[in-house]
């Protein structure tokens, strides 16, 4: 079935009222952003919250939603990563000051009991490594594209991916991911 939003051309989109333009952008990019956020957070509910927050921030900033920027995907992914990193930093700070409530287990891993093995396995990686793995192996981005998104060199991306693969290789058989 063809999605209504897929057949709206760029010219037609420009004529839409603000509400509908924002809705269109959200509906076009929400699925991809949610998958990325799930890989980062390991928790579907948190991921959906983070995605909503990211869209609110990014679309709230864009001056011209009439022209869907090609970089919207990149902006949203960056924002998701930043929100998630801030969340983790805040959690670390809370744990430091509230030792009695610290369970020693990351909230992101506790909700993965029923999720796929691959997502559980990815939790051993850092957020940046997870992001790189998602972009490279799920979205098939080139090293150059990832480097641009991460604002770092090609070599740095290769080394992030190499580190991630080394970590994953050690646990791949243990987790029995297929």
């Amino acid at each position, binding site marked *: 079935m063809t999605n209504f939003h897929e057949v709206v051309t760029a010219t037609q989109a420009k004529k839409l009222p603000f509400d509908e333009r924002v809705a269109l952008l959200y509906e076009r990019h929400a699925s991809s952003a*949610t998958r990325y956020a799930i*890989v980062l957070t390991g928790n579907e509910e948190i991921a959906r919250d983070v995605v*909503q927050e990211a869209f609110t921030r990014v679309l*709230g900033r864009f001056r011209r939603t009439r022209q869907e920027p090609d970089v919207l995907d990149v902006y949203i992914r960056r924002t998701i990563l930043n929100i998630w990193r801030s969340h983790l930093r805040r959690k670390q700070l809370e744990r430091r000051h509230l030792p009695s409530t610290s369970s020693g287990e990351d909230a992101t891993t506790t909700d993965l009991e029923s999720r796929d093995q*691959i997502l559980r396995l990815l939790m051993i990686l850092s957020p940046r490594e997870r992001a790189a793995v998602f972009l490279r*192996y*799920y979205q098939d981005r080139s090293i150059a594209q990832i480097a641009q998104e991460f604002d770092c060199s090609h070599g740095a991306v290769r080394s992030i991916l190499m580190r991630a*693969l080394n970590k994953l290789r050690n646990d791949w058989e243990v987790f029995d*991911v*297929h």
Partner: protein
Amino acid sequence: MSTKLEGQIRTALRHSLDPIRGDIGATQTVVSAVKRRRIAKWATTGAFTTLMSFASVFAWSQVFNPTPLQPPGLSGSSSTPPRSNSNPAGSSDGGGRMVASGEHEGRHWKLYAYTTDAPADGQGPNGDFCHAFRFGEESPGDDFTCGVGEGSPIFPPEYISPVWVMPRHGPHVFYGRVAPPVASVEIEEAGRTSAQARLYESQTDSESTKFFVAFAQPSDRVVIVAYDAEGNELQRRPMVVGPGD
């Protein structure tokens, strides 16, 4: 080895992530949040600041040439915000003084009052008297908002100054300051009362300030109605929420 592992990762990720879809049901929530954010951002722009400067001049002219700005029958309230309520340090991050708290559907909430120190995060010019509502002990920024400029001298006093909050979780929240002689506040949806607000009184060194807090699940146009002790309607404040906001 690496190539084989990469292939396995690709397959596993596709298998796991392809069925996941974005939360399209949240589209209107996002649209409303984007609009509110843009309005808040606009409030810090030069155009808005200039507009407020004119409004400020007008307010001062009212001080030196006093004409009644208050609605008839309203006594004892001042157009000056209760600065004594503010946090001396000022804050826009959920600091300030807690003026009311309670529990709704098992979740604790708190209402803060404070003055802003700086026009950070689009929350109004320096020195504005603001409210902030927060559920639980969540980090600042979660389920948190600020009533820009309420109670500021540039805004004439009203019986109620409602603010609508749409938290990411839970019901919608309406809260605001209440000026005498308001004795009760109700939330009306489709012409019928859908929620009764609770009033909270906050006593400070110099004066007492009343606040109302109400929870509702609005779907369309909502009206906040203020009544006096005899049940006479004092003020109606329509608020468009949800889709179409």
